């Protein structure tokens, strides 16, 4: 009998980066790299665990943009091409590194790329959603949803209809692709404001997460702090992030990912090797990019040129040690908490999925070891999902969580600062216009319906929190600005065309083809509702 619960949450998200207009779009590579480095490695370990009948329970968000990209034939085809180039490159690397200390690592990549190809093409027929759905149906994963385009909901609450549009669109796509409606949601950027839960409630969502202070600062003060969920007055449960288990995994400075034996992110052959050799495998314009082939370990606090060769056996040992350490700390934590509480504590540990494999190369290994150790080496903690917990403990305290996010400084500043505040003037206006359109056009048909639906798509795409985030980081700003502007301008054009009854079908078809997310969207989801929370409360 376990004394407490561990709720691991992986949040898998990428913004919608599909650019049919160009064969080599840099930003599309975010998706391809994440597939090779994160999603496929996770699928690989889950499949292996199931085959060996090792029990585990993990909560995972597959955001609607990610689901859409996973199922998009153009991106699937491009990924295969990308992977084939990578395989071609690693074949050359096998020869080039022969007899050097890098050869073992080259062979490791070779195996992993070939595995990726067989998992992607043969096992799952290019559709990774089917892999995750399988794990869901086998009871191993609880898959939850997110905002339709990862819109930053607290800053959208001025027009609650916009929040509702994000939620409804997300649930619809999720249900279509995964065969059942999601019980929970990962609020984009873990960002909550009072009132959002009412919209979740209306749409059948039973739980969400906040950062630690979202629960700790709730009112009334929660009895169990972050070690049990609270119910919002609307009846939706809110789970708070654990403090202790966060930094160990997230931080390269203080946590596991910075270990000297682990792979160094910044020594990539895309940057290190001669243009003549690497040219065909980087951007055709000669822009150097990461290929994913990296031969060095972090080594220590030394200059990039002083890094030493990576040894994947040793890194593997470290991953096992770190998994053991993580489990030991959780056991210790649970033992301590269980003495203070009259029910088993739940430790909520959410991470970006892309942390595993992409930022922290050994992350999937670590997760694999952790799952196995929890299954075989102890019985203090049990892995559960929020739905499991709520089923066992349906009675929880009622309190209102505190408006918060998991961004820097804990509130909304990352998404509302000098670098990005200008977007809200447009986003709010467009959201209001969309609501007006939905209100004015009931049961539109034909061309009108198509234009209204496309307007909703453009609004949603403009609302991605990713754009505001990128602007605040100061890198790649141009792309984020361009995406924001493009979608708003597309929206405004459609808005006036619809209002003036002069829809340009050619242009509409172009937009439908380019920004083809949410094929089944229904603009009426954006209609005003009497029952929505007052904007005042956010």
């Amino acid at each position, binding site marked *: 009998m376990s004394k407490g619960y561990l709720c691991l949450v992986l949040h898998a998200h990428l913004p919608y980066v599909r650019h049919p207009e160009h064969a080599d779009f840099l930003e599309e590579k975010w998706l391809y790299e994440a597939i090779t480095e994160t999603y496929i490695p996770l699928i690989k370990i889950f499949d292996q665990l199931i085959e060996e009948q090792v029990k585990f329970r993990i909560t995972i968000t597959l955001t609607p943009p990610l689901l859409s990209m996973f199922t998009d034939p153009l991106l699937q085809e491009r990924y295969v091409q990308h992977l084939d180039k990578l395989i071609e490159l690693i074949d050359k690397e096998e020869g080039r590194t022969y007899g050097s200390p890098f050869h073992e690592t080259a062979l490791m990549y070779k195996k992993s790329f070939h595995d990726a190809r067989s998992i992607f093409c043969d096992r799952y027929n290019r559709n990774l959603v089917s892999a995750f759905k399988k794990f869901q149906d086998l009871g191993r994963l609880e898959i939850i949803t997110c905002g339709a385009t990862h819109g930053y909901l607290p800053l959208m609450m001025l027009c609650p209809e916009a929040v509702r549009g994000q939620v409804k669109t997300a649930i619809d796509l999720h249900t279509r692709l995964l065969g059942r409606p999601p019980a929970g949601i990962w609020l984009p950027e873990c960002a909550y404001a009072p009132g959002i839960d009412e919209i979740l409630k209306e749409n059948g969502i039973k739980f969400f997460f906040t950062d630690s202070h979202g629960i700790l600062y709730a009112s009334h003060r929660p009895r169990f702090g972050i070690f049990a969920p609270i119910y919002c007055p609307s009846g939706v449960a809110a789970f708070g992030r654990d403090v202790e288990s966060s930094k160990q995994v*997230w931080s390269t400075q203080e946590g596991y990912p910075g270990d000297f034996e682990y792979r160094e992110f910044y020594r990539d052959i895309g940057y290190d090797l001669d243009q003549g050799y690497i040219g065909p495998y980087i951007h055709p314009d000669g822009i150097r990019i990461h290929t994913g082939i990296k031969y060095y370990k972090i080594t220590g606090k030394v200059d990039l040129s002083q890094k030493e060769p990576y040894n994947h056996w040793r890194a593997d040992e470290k991953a096992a040690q770190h998994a053991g350490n993580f489990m030991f700390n959780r056991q210790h934590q649970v033992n301590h908490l269980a003495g203070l509480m009259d029910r088993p504590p739940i430790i909520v540990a959410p991470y970006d999925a892309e942390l595993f494999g992409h930022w922290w190369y050994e992350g999937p290994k670590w997760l694999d070891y952790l799952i196995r150790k929890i299954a075989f080496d102890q019985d203090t903690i049990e892995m559960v999902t929020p739905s499991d917990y709520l089923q066992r403990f349906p009675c929880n305290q009622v309190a209102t969580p505190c408006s918060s996010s998991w961004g820097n400084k804990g509130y909304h500043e990352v998404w509302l600062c000098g670098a990005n505040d200008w977007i809200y003037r447009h986003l709010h206006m467009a959201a209001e216009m969309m609501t007006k359109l939905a209100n004015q056009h009931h049961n539109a048909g034909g061309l009108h319906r198509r234009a209204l639906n496309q307007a909703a798509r453009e609004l949603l795409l403009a609302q991605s929190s990713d754009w505001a*985030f990128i602007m*605040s980081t100061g890198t790649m700003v141009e792309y984020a600005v361009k995406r924001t*502007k493009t979608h708003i301008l597309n929206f405004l054009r459609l808005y006036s065309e619809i209002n003036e009854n002069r829809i340009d079908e050619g242009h509409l078809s172009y937009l439908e083809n380019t920004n083809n997310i949410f094929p089944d969207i229904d603009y009426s989801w954006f209609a005003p509702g009497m029952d929505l929370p007052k904007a005042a409360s*956010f």
Partner: protein
Amino acid sequence: MNVLFPWLFGAIMLILVSGIFLWPLIQSRTAKKNDHRGFLIPAPLFNEEFSSELSNDIALKPPKNQSLEAELPHHYGMDRMILMVRDPHWLFAYWELTATKNEQFTNNYGPEAWSATHPVLRVYDITDVDFNGKNAIGYTDIHVSENIDNWYIQVGEPDRTFCIDLGRMFSDGRFITLLRSNTVTTPRASLSDRLDEEWMWIEGLYRSIGRFQYGISSPMIVEEHALRKGVVPLGISSPGFSRKD
């Protein structure tokens, strides 16, 4: 004249725009104040709006984010004052004032009234109040310059409810409201004082949590990487990276 002017302006803009469209779309950084309006012309919806705006803000300095917004309309022809919460201590407001509002003011208070007054943001504390314009718990005035249309407001008070007015103030201190915002409540920045008798908090639990740090998420990875290498990867919660030149 009042009627003619917008159309004249529209016509000039049309010519301008057809010119602009021929340029490759690379002038975003240097775009001037009028460019973003120009792009609007194909959508006549906004014709009226920006033309009416013209009379009172053509002489204004572009706001700081102008270059980023370049091709978007800066005005939507609607009087609005939007208040947003950034954190427990800061609010952000942006607003748009149409020429009609401006004219109304002049009609009510005389032709000299606009130049005899200056803009003021009045920040009302309306915590637990059903605000009617007069019953605020208190207010603070922020004197702003004519040229701006957004402002960060340091209220410094978590868990309070605010609303703001944009108005004009005469030299004798008389304040005339032009726009009123939505209301917002700042988040708490500490534990709630409200305790639940049935679910009395377990002090020891809170003590074991101790101090904690905000913002452990993908932005932190970006920062840590930047620190480590002087290289800023592009971090969404995502991969994608670029080197700082």
